[in-house]
């Protein structure tokens, strides 16, 4: 049953012609409203995950639920199809269960607020935002249990419910939910902040309707979607061929010893339409790395990538949706069956961006970016202060940005929109730990004409006992390089105990007990390199050695030999480059590093961890 919209005023909107200037003004006003949504959220949220790191996503949609501004939509359609109930003025929907909204949110930590915006008795627009909650209860702090085998272990599931019913706040409902989580104060405040942001958007939509008229507003949003449709249609024609191309990448493991899991996508064009087909992707995992991918969400990712890669001028919205057909096999890693666990979907989510990049740039290598959008590495650290108070940290780390046609990949920066790191002084002030090192790892970015960004080495000294969880990937497969660039370095986690013993921690783990004085080396991956490293300016390589971003030895990956004082040894460099060029032969478009089988063979020796076992499905 789809949702039933109750409107007191049943008069249909009258399509009107909107002059181009008014249209641009409305577009601009909508963009501003979105910026205001973010500003409100960051200023009032409490969990470091949202307030410092920005793990939240706003949108404003038209009355049919199509996103007009935003970037991580559009999930309203999925909700409307699945929601069995009435919706009327004053209602606000709260939901956090992927299975009841066709993957509108992809794990239960993401709390989504959907606010239908009514004016004079009619639904005219939608405002929505979701944000990642630090904790929603369940079997481990942070609610992302690696070893979950069903969603029932992953904390509270919130089906679509009304947090406001005809304008009335449902306090009992909120109290019930807050009772299930470990950090109720943060959740409550973050939820408040999300609602306040949507209210902000609601106010702005009302103002626009007052200023321009409701019919003009509705026709303008229609036209903005249409504008995007036209631009994308042209773009698709010029950049996507009818011939089928495919790309494969992997999630390294499932945290239970199995892996890697294959994500395979093919792309071709039929007339005006692009088909994106995930046939060939591995079946769902028994653990929590499944990613319930909403088809519209993937259209969105595809659209944004097309625009950024080929023409960043285009305003981005849902208008082009009819031009894309996304096919995801049922029961696969990307469309698991209920009640499969979903909490650790971040790795597959990250990896589909590498897959997209690999697909889109394949035919035009000059537009191709290297890999590195691995995932967003998480660290959870929780326990009791000596004074008995509970503390709980959820922190997102960053790696190296891939080498790009545009230039070097920045070191230790975020690939996620709007994310920032948590200031180390803030961490030390509010959590019992000290950061002894926070810098990028030399040589971890793939070599290239444009270097891949270095990953980060962050060293946590724990000042009180507690428990940590880690969620990371790209420890087994490499972030690939392109057009002659080499792969970036893989990730690593090392726990150095206060007594001097060292252990390598798995990339995905929970319930690791740490003691006062233990030191965790949290090392993220580097981005792949772009283009021929032998053609990179040798003086720039020498400068990067002085900067500590590339090591003296690492310069040789560029065929650059330095003198003892750090100058380029011109003769030796020329000879070495000539020699390297002869040995490597013809440059390939992709450099994935060793094959999966070779990686398995050397895994233990290279990484200190046993190789993952190929998953088997009955």
């Amino acid at each position, binding site marked *: 049953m789809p949702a039933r919209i109750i409107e007191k005023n049943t008069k249909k909107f009258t399509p009107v012609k909107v*002059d*181009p*200037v008014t249209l*641009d*003004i409305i577009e*601009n006003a909508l963009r501003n409203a979105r910026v205001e949504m973010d*500003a409100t959220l*960051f*200023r*009032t*949220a*409490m969990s470091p995950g949202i*307030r410092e790191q920005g793990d939240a996503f706003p949108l404003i949609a038209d009355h049919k639920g199509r996103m007009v501004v935003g*970037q991580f939509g559009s999930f309203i359609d999925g909700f409307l199809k699945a929601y069995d109930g009435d919706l009327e003025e004053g209602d606000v929907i709260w939901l956090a269960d992927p299975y009841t909204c066709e993957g509108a949110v992809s794990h239960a930590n993401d709390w989504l607020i959907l606010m239908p915006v009514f004016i004079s008795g009619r639904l005219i627009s939608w405002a929505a935002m979701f944000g990642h909650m630090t904790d929603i209860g369940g079997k481990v702090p942070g609610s992302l249990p690696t070893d979950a085998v069903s969603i029932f272990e992953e904390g509270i599931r919130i089906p679509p419910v009304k947090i406001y019913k005809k304008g009335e706040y449902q306090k009992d409902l909120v109290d019930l939910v807050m009772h299930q989580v470990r950090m109720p*104060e*943060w959740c*409550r*405040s973050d939820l*408040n902040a999300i609602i306040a942001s949507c209210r902000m958007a609601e106010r702005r939509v009302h103002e626009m309707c007052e200023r321009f008229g409701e019919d003009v507003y509705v026709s303008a949003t229609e036209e903005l979607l249409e*504008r995007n449709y*036209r*631009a994308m249609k*042209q*773009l698709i024609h010029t950049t996507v061929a009818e011939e089928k191309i495919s790309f494969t990448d992997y999630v390294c493991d499932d945290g239970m010893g199995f892996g890697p899991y294959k994500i395979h996508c093919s792309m071709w064009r039929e007339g005006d339409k692009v088909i994106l087909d995930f046939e060939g992707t591995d079946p769902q995992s028994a653990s929590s790395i499944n990613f319930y991918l909403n088809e519209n969400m993937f259209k969105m*990712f595809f659209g*944004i*990538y097309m*625009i*950024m*890669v080929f*023409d960043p*001028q*285009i305003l981005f919205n849902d208008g082009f949706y009819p031009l894309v057909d996304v096919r995801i096999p049922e029961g696969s890693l990307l469309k698991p069956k209920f009640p499969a666990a979903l909490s650790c979907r971040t790795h597959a989510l990250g990896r589909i961006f590498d897959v997209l990049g690999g697909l889109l740039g394949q035919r035009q290598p000059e537009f191709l970016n290297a890999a590195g959008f691995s995932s967003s590495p998480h660290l959870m650290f929780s326990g009791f202060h000596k004074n008995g108070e509970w503390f709980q940290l959820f922190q997102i780390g*960053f790696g190296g*940005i891939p080498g*790009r046609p*545009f*230039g*070097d990949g*920045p*070191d*230790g*920066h*975020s*690939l996620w*929109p*709007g*994310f*920032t790191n948590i*200031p*180390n*002084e*803030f961490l030390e*002030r509010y959590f019992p730990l000290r*950061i002894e*090192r*926070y*810098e990028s790892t030399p040589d971890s970015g793939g070599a290239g004409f444009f270097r891949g960004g270095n990953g980060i080495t962050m060293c946590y000294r724990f000042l009180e006992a507690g428990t940590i969880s880690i969620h990371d990937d790209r420890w087994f497969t490499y972030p690939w390089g392109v057009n002659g660039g080499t792969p970036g370095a893989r990730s690593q986690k090392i726990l150095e105990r206060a007594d001097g013993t060292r252990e390598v921690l798995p990339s995905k783990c929970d319930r690791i007990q740490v003691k006062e004085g233990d030191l965790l080396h949290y090392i993220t991956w580097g981005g792949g390199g772009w283009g021929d490293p032998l053609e990179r300016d040798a003086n720039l390589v020498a400068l990067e050695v002085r900067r*500590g*971003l590339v090591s003296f030895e690492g310069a040789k990956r560029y065929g650059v030999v330095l003198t003892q004082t750090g100058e380029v040894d011109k003769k030796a460099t020329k000879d070495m480059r000539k020699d390297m060029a002869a040995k490597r032969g013809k440059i390939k478009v992709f450099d994935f590093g060793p094959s999966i089988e070779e990686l398995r063979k050397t895994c233990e020796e290279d990484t200190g961890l046993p190789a993952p076992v190929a998953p088997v499905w009955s």
Partner: protein
Amino acid sequence: MSYRLGVDVGGTFTDLLIIHDETGETYQAKVPTTPHDPAIAVIEGAKKLCTAHGLKATDIDLFLHGTTIATNTILEGKGCRVGLIVTEGFRQVLQVARAFVPGGLAGWIIWPKPEPLAPLECTVEAPERMGADGKVVRPLDEEALRKNLQALKNEGVEALTVCLMNSYINPAHEKQVAKICAEEFPDLPVSISFEILPEMQEYERTLTTVANSAVRPRVSSYVRNLSKELKDWGMRGKLNLLRSDGGLMSTEKAEQAPVNLLMSGPAGGVAGAVWVAKHAGFNNILTLDMGGTSTDVALIENGQPRLKRETTVSDLTVRVSSLDIRTVGAGGGSIAHVPELTKALRVGPESAGADPGPVAYKQGGTSPTVTDANVVLGNLPEGLLGGKMKLDRTGAQKAVQTIADALGIEVMEAAAGIIDIVNENMFGALRLVSIQQGYDPRDFALMGFGGAGPLHANAIGRLMQSWPVIIPPSPGVLCAYGDATTRMRVETARSFNKQFKDTSDAELADIMDKMGKEVATELAGEGVPKSDQEITFELDIRYQGQAFEVPLAADLSLFKAGKGIKEIARAFNAEHKRLFTFNLDTSLEFVNLRAVALGKPANVSSPEIKKGDGNAARAKIRDHLVYMDGQEREAVIYDRRNLLAGDTIKGPAIITEMDSTTLVLLGHVAKIDSFGNILITPEE
């Protein structure tokens, strides 16, 4: 005789204004800016202005100066080579920054990452560690530091910066490192983070302190040079510079902490607006300072411009108080274009600037600009006495026609569209300082100034519903007015991170008292006797756990009486509700404390103009046609010099003067007040 001289150095012109302290009588001059050495225009202009009015150098008691020297140093990438000393393990603090990539999802694909302000090869580590509790974890290894510092000797650094972890809580190591730096590099200025910004967050503190170092040598040499020239000329008065927060500072202070000057230029306009508004009897003002390439907007509430806790110049944002001025890339020179794929009408941010300039200026410009659209519509009439150059209307029309063709509309519609879009961009910026901060723009008047502000202010007043629209006399030199009339200011801040329940009125009163005395002493050192000072306090407060704090004014006497915390909690909840629509049950915490010492406001009166009979006909130049609200309409052009107090003008009308043109729209009325301001309101 007691005169003060205000000087504002702009990109194209240097404006000078002499005010007689008692009578308020003014003399003004405009000379071309000398970009290679701005001091030349300042000195020459001052001499010229004094000579023209029979004044001597010794008549000038105060020389007050708004300067863009620090801003331009950053904008042009001409900051000096800065050496940076950080805690071991944090060498890449500026390289990794806050890990933020702008531009949304996939924005990383096209983002050009700026180079760190202190090069990584000039950054060295100090082996030491301070804990978050202010206790030493690892003492400074002086010998190892000296060794590390040797690496800087071959790097040609021109200034040094020290920023160590947790120094905001205990600066002992920073002081120790600074001392060693001074020994190793006796010729280099050293900036210490604790002195520039004693607040939590290592990246922001480092960046702010490095920015201070980066502009320091250039600002110093400018200030020294200017002081010397003024002295040689015979001036005995004091030279003060305008800070980004709208206050004045001494030259000595400016040389130590020039990071406070980054918004000195635009702050002058806002300070000028404050002065004009006070005399005209308006407390709440939105300002619109529109120039050739960009527009600055700000909000003034109860005669006080809103402050913010950061300063942004291009892609550099530092934690230094500045007036909350938002800048949009929308000005007279902004270029209109229609992108191929979307067929949308865009205006700016590309600008034709002063060179080649708009098509109508006939200096080689070919792209249609906002000015060209104004010329096409008739808003900027050709051949006026004020305008130095003859405007090329045919050329402007041709250029705007390209936009009309791309959109499939008439040329007049296209020109009107360009104006609507650029107005909308400015409207967006004004919303940021008003609506987004919880203010209702209908409670504010709008003041338009700068070269192009008076031309657009009426239309923007209509969008904002902010009335009246005020066009001050000589809107082109308002910044110099601001420089000449604002007050001395000294500020100090400190981190005070405690929950309400963990502190007391007495503790806060004690700290505020000390901070108050500190700023009072410092301001006295700048030549303001304590009897002329006003001391104010500000507390940053938030719900425990929030990242952003709300700054609130605090009354020391309330804390002394034991009622301060209660009162500030009430004020916080009210402000939070106004800003964000909700309150929480969570406990409150203090974050930072600030004390500000202000000098006496300038006792300058505003001269009144003669009262007329209400009939503006005496000022009429000629009849004229303008395109407005969909058709050509009859309008009248007036000469502002001949307008008298009480005159009333019905729109559509154009009022011209030397440096600016005011447009009065159809359905609006302009009145001249007794100080010569033009006040525009909708017709009854």
